[in-house]
């Protein structure tokens, strides 16, 4: 059976339209990327509530902050490189410090941007955003989770950073008992030999890797950490105690992202060896997204190989 694939930026656009119908106070801002970030879907239905700021991301974040002070709920979108990178200080000082109710919804995160190459592949946004006090950081794994995250972000009072991807990824959470809650990790597979903690598009790859490892006699648990801040320390601790080995997998630098966050949480609660799989302190490059995911070792094959090597 063909697995359904949806890019989480597409899920974001759809979720915005649905939320826009329910909430008159929702305003969407973009910086000349509405077609790519998919806020254009919202613009088609609610043109009067969509503000295109032009190619000026720093100003867009400031405008979103100003709008939030008047009681409306702005979602400001650009590529992760520009929303979290270029406008970092605006997010920190105009949104984070006054703890304004601004949602920064960044698309085209990570190397799966593909052909545009390193200038547009942001592998540092999670690290940047999670250092800001009071900022919630969410990196959904698929269509179902992305839509739930957008709604949860709207309901949450305070700043939220949402990370979406360009590449269509498998839908893995389409089940009746799926429940999204900010800050709560989800156990997708139990296991006793090690625990793979993954986020974003790496969750489906981690699941695949765990299945293949199982056939080779390695029993790996898989946890989906969609919220990197606040991180679910309780769940991580439980699985660190249970398996004694943690592997983190992310489409982000291993410095400061999920790997960093998990190490921080466990070093204080249950120190166990942690292997960090992700972008190894380097820039990306141009190429088709799937090829890059393979080359940088964050597909199922790469995850499996690195785990086996680590455990050998």
């Amino acid at each position, binding site marked *: 059976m063909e697995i359904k694939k949806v890019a989480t930026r597409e899920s974001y656009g759809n979720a915005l339209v649905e939320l826009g119908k329910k909430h008159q106070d929702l305003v969407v801002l973009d910086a000349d990327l509405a077609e790519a970030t998919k806020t254009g879907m919202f613009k088609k239905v609610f043109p009067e*509530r969509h503000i295109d700021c032009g190619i*000026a991301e720093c100003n867009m974040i400031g405008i979103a902050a100003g709008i939030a002070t*008047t009681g409306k709920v702005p979602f400001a979108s650009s590529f992760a490189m520009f929303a979290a990178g270029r406008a970092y200080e605006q997010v920190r000082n105009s949104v984070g410090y006054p703890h304004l109710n601004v949602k920064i919804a960044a698309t085209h995160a990570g190397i799966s941007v593909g052909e545009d190459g390193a200038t547009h592949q942001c592998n540092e946004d999670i690290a940047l955003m999670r250092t800001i006090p009071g900022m919630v950081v969410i990196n959904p794994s698929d269509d179902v989770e992305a839509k739930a995250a957008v709604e949860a972000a709207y309901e949450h009072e305070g700043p939220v950073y949402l990370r979406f991807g360009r590449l269509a990824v498998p839908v893995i959470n389409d089940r009746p008992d799926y429940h999204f809650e900010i800050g709560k990790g989800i156990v997708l597979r139990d296991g006793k030999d090690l625990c793979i903690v993954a986020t974003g598009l790496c969750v489906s790859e981690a699941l695949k890797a765990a299945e293949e490892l199982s056939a080779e006699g390695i029993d790996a648990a898989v946890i989906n950490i969609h919220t990197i801040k606040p991180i679910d320390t309780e769940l991580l601790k439980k699985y660190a105690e249970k398996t004694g080995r943690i592997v983190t997998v992310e489409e982000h630098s291993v410095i400061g992202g999920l790997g960093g966050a998990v190490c921080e949480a466990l070093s204080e609660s249950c120190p166990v060896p942690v292997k960090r799989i992700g972008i190894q302190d380097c820039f990306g490059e141009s190429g088709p997204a799937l090829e890059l995911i393979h080359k940088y070792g964050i597909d199922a094959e790469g995850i499996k190989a690195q785990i086996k090597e680590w455990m050998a």
Partner: protein
Amino acid sequence: MNTLELKRTANEIRKGIIEGVHAAKAGHPGGALSSTEIFTWLYFQEMNVDPADPKKPDRDRFVLSKGHSAPGYYAALAERGFFPKEDLLTLRHTGSYLQGHPDMKHIPGVDMTSGSLGQGVSAAVGMAISAKLSKDSYRVYTLLGDGEIEEGQVWEAAMFAGYHKLDNLVFIVDNNNLQIDGPITEVCSPYPIDKKFEAFNFHVINVEDGNDIEQIAAAFKEAREVKGMPTAIIAHTLKGKGVSFMEGQVGWHGKAPNDEQYGQAMADLDRIGAELEKESGAYGD
């Protein structure tokens, strides 16, 4: 308030600036003193605000984009009754709500956190477009430094405001001609400031003497009549205005007076106050 009352109020605000910065042993007196007539006009004449209800939804908004002039902003808010004047002496002290730069979360009457130059102005633009979206009638004012407008974000915000015809928005540039490293003409000159804002589709008003309350009054009255475009008031001011040894001195951008200098500064302001009292007697006020 009549002109004389506004002048007296401005002088009281200047005393508040000197007292606050002296007590803090740090802060920025120069640009606060050059902006004093602007604060005075905004908070005592122009803006619809209520110290008893600082968050009332229909209030006019003010963003101090040149956030380092906080001592002047705080002194004006205290003079207007948003918080006790004696609290000005806690400026920049550990645990005080009067932070070095404006903090909307803790200071009554502050509409936006600011201080990193170039950022406040974007928030003001956001407030103005938000009013347009929901057809609210409040107006938005933002005060910038002439050095601050070297920041690129100011022009991103100006481009947006001009394009969206935000006639509920007024930029005021405190053109005191000095920035930390020297005269703005010797650092990275932003002149001609008026022509730049004109090119960004602003209605521009040049105020020859931005420390003359009557000229400030005329400029803000003109701004109210402007339709279909934002206004930029370029106020030519004197840095350190009112304190003889600070006037026109770049060194007083971000330095606190010592005890002796404090006494001298307060004596200058007392003298100005006494002259205003004489004036009031002459007019039978």
